[in-house]
């Protein structure tokens, strides 16, 4: 399983989304055994994926949830709102549908 940074992040987002959704379901169905089993299985998978990601690309969480290499990696780019996309001067902007 060879994934680049973006593929690994995408996989984490997929599994974490499933975990979030089942978590909300369990909040109002705490005795649903199959959902609980799914939650535990996906949580294990998510923990493994995050460990794999953090070993290569630095911590996803701070405040004692993941160790850091030197120098302090938490501050490193990219932050979640940053992307390779940049608006180029010569590129026209998108318009609203009514235009």
């Amino acid at each position: 399983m060879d994934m680049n940074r973006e593929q690994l992040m995408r996989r984490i987002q997929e599994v974490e989304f499933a975990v979030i959704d089942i978590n909300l379901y369990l909040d109002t169905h705490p005795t649903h055994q199959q959902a609980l089993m799914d939650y535990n299985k996906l949580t294990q998978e998510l923990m493994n994926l995050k460990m794999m990601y953090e070993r290569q690309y630095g911590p996803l969480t701070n405040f004692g949830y993941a160790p850091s290499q030197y120098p302090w990696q938490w501050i490193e780019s990219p932050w979640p709102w940053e992307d390779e996309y940049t608006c180029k001067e010569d590129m026209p902007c998108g318009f609203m549908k009514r235009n």
Partner: protein
Amino acid sequence: MWIYEKKLEYPVKVSTCNPSLAAMIIEQFGGADGELAASLRYLTQRWAMPTNQAKAILTDIGTEELAHWEMIGTIVYQLTKDLPESKIVGTPFEAHYVNHGLDVYPHNAAGVPFTATYFNAKGDPIANLHENMAAEQKARATYEHLISISDDPGVIDALRFLRQREVVHFQRFGEALRIVQEYQDSKKFF
């Protein structure tokens, strides 16, 4: 305590700059039925909620809404990132720009700044949960309006994800409401 995760809940891929679209999508960043109002509404209502299921759902949906707020901020930021003034003047984003530049700020699409009067904590769990269900439907409707005026496929994809989450949240609040009602009936509340 809250822990920040250095990732988006769902990827945001903006195709091109679009200050007009950014000026409309900011509705969900600082508007009445936006993600910030949603998050603060649910987190604020937690304290006197009577059942554990409802305390958990308010905590967890309130937290997920903050992740949605971050996604909306990311869309607005990316739609306007590095924009020269020449591409802002004459668009609906110009009014935002004169006050906030390219910072993202919580106001609605008409420029009205965010206020806590957008939500309530009524001292009544049944009233609170009904407000939350209505809020989820209003957020869903706003997303549908935004999707119908957008022509950026990456933005539409993220908005569809957010719209779908409102539908799920509505469902969960409905279940929490039923649980709280049963609890109150069992206590012969009145």
